[in-house]
Structure formats: structure tokens, C-alpha cells
């Protein structure tokens, strides 16, 4: 692969825009390696990726070591006389209604958001990869049934479905419950992604060759199909973490997610909404941090997609 663009342009069909074809026909390990190293080279030059990565790391650090970011203030040590006080040099984010330091509260909210986002995405990936791989690999009736089940869940909006499940109380109201409720109504896209990848690769010549040499179903799935499905699933998962964090905040805002005394951005926004006129900072700061967190994952996912899709390079 010296320089495909150049020779493509040199050809007569200059306007047609040739596909360089690195991943269309996924080959052996060497090709996989070059896909990832090419992607990394591309990522390193992408400013948006670095913005996303730095923001993402910042919030992971915030979730792990909140006291550092809260400047050592305990989010639960409050003084009602400070109720809704505005931001100051001493207290950057001001105070909430109870007179607690708002910076500390917002910072301590990161942990729940990230745990729910990561947990939900893991469940989604397990469900999606499992169901998608089975569906795509076996095809036929199995595929029809599993695909229809995915359609059924797809017809129910994420927030509405999670709302009903959480309100029903089957799962309880904790961090795990919210994560599972979100995963339950959010696994279908991952499933479809994996399914279509599996079908495409299953029909490729090199899988036929592996089969002809006596490779078992499991071996073909694990050695040949899964490595090729990793790239699109990774892109999807990255963006989805952000979307799930937003969804958690929304559910909590609506009163069916985390409950007080848990510390959560959704609860803070909920409390703050009635103060929009008098103390806008109560909504502003949790919203800002929530948005930056979601943005971190969207930016990383976007950059990753561009880097992993050779067709977009030119």
C-alpha cells in the first residue's frame, strides 16, 4: 500500500473515486493490524479526538477521585444560610438550595453517571453481540425470530420503555437497575450491527476457505468473524456511552432513575428547574458538565469512525 490515492487519481477514471479497499474484503491478521495502525495514525492528527479524549479522561478521573476535583469539600456538609448563593471565588459553582457547595455536588455526580453509562454499555454489548452473532450466523428461522424480537424492542422508545420498567419496580431503583433498564431497551442497534457484519463476513471467500479446511463454527466465529466486527461495534459503543449517560440523567430528572440522597446530575437539574429565574446556576452547572461528558464520548466515537472507515479517507 504505497499510495493508493495517487495511482487512483492518475488513472483515467479520475472522477469516479476508487475505493482503496482495505476493509471491504477483510483478510488475515496483517490487514487487521494495518487497519488499526492506520486508524491510530489518523486519530493522532484529529484535534476533535484529542478534545474528546482529554474531556473523557477528566471525567473518569473525576469519578475516581472526586474529592480532588471538589477541592476537598464534602458535598453533604451544608449550611442553609448559603441556600442558592451565587458562584464566588471561594465557591466556583455557588450553592444549591440546601446550601451545599455546588461544585462538590456536581463533581460527585460524575461517578454514578459513568458507572451507569459503562455498565449499561457492557450489558448492551453482551446482549447485542450474542444475539446478533447467533442471528447472523445461523440465519433462517432463528434469525427471523430474533430479528422480530429486536424490532419489537425497537418500536418502544428508549426513555418510555425504561420509564415503565423502572416505575414497575421489578429491578429496584439503584444504579444497577437504571443501567439494566437502559440496556433492555437499547441493545437492538448493537445486535443489528453485529448481525449484518456476521452475514457479510460469513459469505466472504476466505471464510469459505477456512470452512473448506475444516474449521469449526466456533472457530470461524471467534477467529474470523468477531475480529472484523470489532471496529463498528467499538465506534457504536463509544458514542452510546455518551447517549446512555444523557438518558440516565433524563430518567433521573423524570423521577424514576436514581433517588435522593444519591448524588446525580439528573436530580440536580430537576431541583434546579424551578429556580431557573432566580438561580440559573443550579441548572447551568450540572447541565454543562453533563453536556461536556456526553460530548467527550460523541467526539471520540466520531473520530474513531472516521479513522476506521478507509472509504472516508482522501
Amino acid at each position: 500500500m504505497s499510495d493508493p490515492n495517487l495511482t487512483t487519481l492518475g488513472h483515467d477514471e479520475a472522477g469516479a473515486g476508487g475505493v482503496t479497499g482495505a476493509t471491504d474484503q477483510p483478510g488475515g491478521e496483517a490487514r487487521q493490524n494495518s487497519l488499526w495502525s492506520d486508524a491510530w495514525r489518523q486519530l493522532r492528527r484529529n484535534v476533535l479526538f484529542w478534545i474528546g479524549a482529554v474531556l473523557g479522561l477528566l471525567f473518569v478521573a473525576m469519578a475516581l477521585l472526586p474529592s480532588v476535583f471538589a477541592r476537598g469539600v464534602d458535598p453533604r456538609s451544608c449550611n442553609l444560610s448559603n441556600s442558592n448563593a451565587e458562584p464566588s471565588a471561594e465557591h466556583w459553582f455557588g450553592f444549591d438550595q440546601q446550601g451545599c457547595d455546588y461544585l462538590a455536588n456536581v463533581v460527585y455526580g460524575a461517578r454514578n453517571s459513568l458507572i451507569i453509562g459503562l455498565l449499561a454499555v457492557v450489558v448492551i454489548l453482551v446482549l447485542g453481540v450474542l444475539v446478533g452473532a447467533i442471528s447472523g450466523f445461523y440465519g433462517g428461522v432463528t434469525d427471523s425470530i430474533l430479528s422480530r424480537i429486536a424490532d419489537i424492542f425497537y418500536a418502544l422508545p428508549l426513555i418510555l420503555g425504561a420509564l415503565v420498567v423502572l416505575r414497575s419496580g421489578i429491578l429496584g431503583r439503584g444504579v444497577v437497575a437504571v443501567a439494566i433498564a437502559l440496556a433492555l431497551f437499547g441493545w437492538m442497534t448493537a445486535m443489528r450491527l453485529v448481525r449484518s457484519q456476521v452475514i457479510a463476513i460469513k459469505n466472504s471467500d476466505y471464510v469459505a476457505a477456512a470452512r473448506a479446511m475444516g474449521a469449526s463454527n466456533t472457530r470461524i466465529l471467534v477467529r474470523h468473524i468477531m475480529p472484523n466486527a470489532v471496529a463498528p461495534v467499538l465506534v457504536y459503543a463509544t458514542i452510546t456511552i455518551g447517549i446512555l449517560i444523557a438518558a440516565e440523567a433524563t430518567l433521573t430528572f423524570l423521577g424514576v432513575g436514581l433517588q435522593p440522597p444519591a448524588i446525580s446530575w439528573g436530580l440536580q437539574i430537576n431541583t434546579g428547574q424551578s429556580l431557573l429565574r432566580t438561580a440559573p446556576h443550579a441548572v447551568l452547572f450540572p447541565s454543562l458538565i453533563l453536556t461536556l461528558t456526553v460530548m467527550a464520548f460523541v467526539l471520540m466515537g466520531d473520530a474513531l469512525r472516521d479513522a476506521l472507515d478507509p472509504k472516508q479517507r482522501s
Partner: protein
Amino acid sequence: MGRYIARRFLLTIPVLLGASFLIFALVYALPGDPIRALGGDRPLAPAVVAQLTDEFNLNDPLWLQYVKYLGDLLQGDFGTDFRGREVIDTISQRMPVTVQLAVVAIAFEILIGIVAGVLAGIRKNGFFDNVVLVSTTLIVSIPILVLAFIAQFTFGLQLGLFPIAGVNEGWYSFLLPGLVLAAGSLAYVARLTRTSIAENMRADYVRTARAKGLPRRDVIVRHTLRNSLIPVVTFIGADIGTLMGGAIVTETVFNLPGIGRAVFDAVRAQEGAVVVGIVTLLVFVFIFFNLVVDVLYAVLDPRIRYE
């Protein structure tokens, strides 16, 4: 083409049944007693409990309850809530608000999304293209909840341009919530249009159109836009169904008495009949518009029509 539509239609039936049963099961198979919950702190008389239990078939096995419910539904009977109000009345009273909201949102998607996408796609990597790319990334990253408050705070409270709650000013009340509701899809429409246009601009048949000596306007409108907008139009069509179900947050924050708000209230009050009725309706709307899109696709792209 008739066979194509018939096949798509048949495929939707199990999905519709499955989704409504799923919600039905979630709502009714639950531990806890909705009738006692209805009484609140004061316990209801046993006779009343027995009568209500009977009325709502709560002693039957779940599947039988569902079959009975379905039978009623097919005759247009959505049932009543625990206070005896017809669910269909709630729906017909709340529906117009949500429809209005969805219409405004779709209008924004078309007006802003497509125009921005076309301008960006025609001059790919130009200044405007980069503006569109950055702003759509930004919009996608802002949760709708946050977006709603940003809109309320800036356009409503600071600038005083729009009402921030209620539906007292007719269509004007729907502009701000409509924009908020549309934002995510709008960004997606812009990006989809951009990609599609940029791709089609390099298509062989566009080169042919230029070689034919067609005026530039015809080359762009007839041979680039027409082809590029097929995926966009179908996305927007499907989005109508999605928006109707996705209006819960918007209707709650902007205090609009629509269907999303109604289902949210019903979920909180554990009004099973209302929840199942509205969700079934929303699923139907979602599936209906997806079916419309499938047909639309076939109309717009002859290659699918003659498959």
C-alpha cells in the same frame, strides 16, 4: 410493488402485537396492587376492591387478560382508567398537541436540516461545511433535557422572545419546544444530506448530465438533489413516528399537555390501561410511518420498486 407492500405490512403485525404485549406484561404482571395504590392512604372497602379487580380482569392469567384487552382494542375500546374515564378520551384530547409539536419539529428538520446539508455538501470541506460539521457535533452532544433549558433560559427568559410553557399562544407556543425536539434529528438530517450530496456529486450520472450540456441548475436539482434526498426523505418519514414517542421530555419541560406528558403521568400514577393504550398507539404510529417510508422508498427509487 403490491407484493412488496403486502410483505412489509405482514411483517409489521407480529411487531405490533409483540410490543403491545411487552408493555402490557410490564404493566400488569407486576408485584404490587394498583387498586390499593389507587386508594392512597385510606384503604378501600373489600367490596370495591373485588368489583374493580373483576372489572379489570385482574384475576385472569396474564395471557388471557391480554387477549381480552386485544379483543376490546380491535373494537376500538381502549378501556377506562381507574377513575372511569375512557382512555380514548384522554388520547383524543392530548393527541392534537403532540401532532402540532411533531409538525413543527419536522418543519425545522426540513427547513434547517436539508438546507444546511445541501449547502455543506455542495462545497465539501469549505467554510460552511466545517461550520455545519462542528455545529451538528455540538448539537448531538447536548442532551435534549439540557437543550430544553438552554432554550427556555436564553430565548424565553433572557430574550423574552418565546413563551416557555403551555400552549396558550397557538402555533407560536410550539416553536421553541419544536426546535428542541427536532434538534438531534435536525443535526442528523444535515449530516445525512451532506454526505449524500457529496457522494452523488461525484456519481457517473452527474458527469453524464454535465456532458449532456444541461444547465447547472438542472444538473444540481434534477440529477444531484433528487437522488441525494431519497435517504433523507425516508429518514424524516420514519422520524415522525420516533418524535411522537420521544416527546416525553420536551412536553414535560415545556409543560405541554400532549400524549407524551399523558403517558408520563400515567406511568407515575400506575394507570395501567392508559399506559398500555397510549404506548400501543405510539407503537402503531411508529410502525405505520416505517411502513409509509418503505412504500415511499419504492416510489422514489425505481430499483426497489421492481425488485
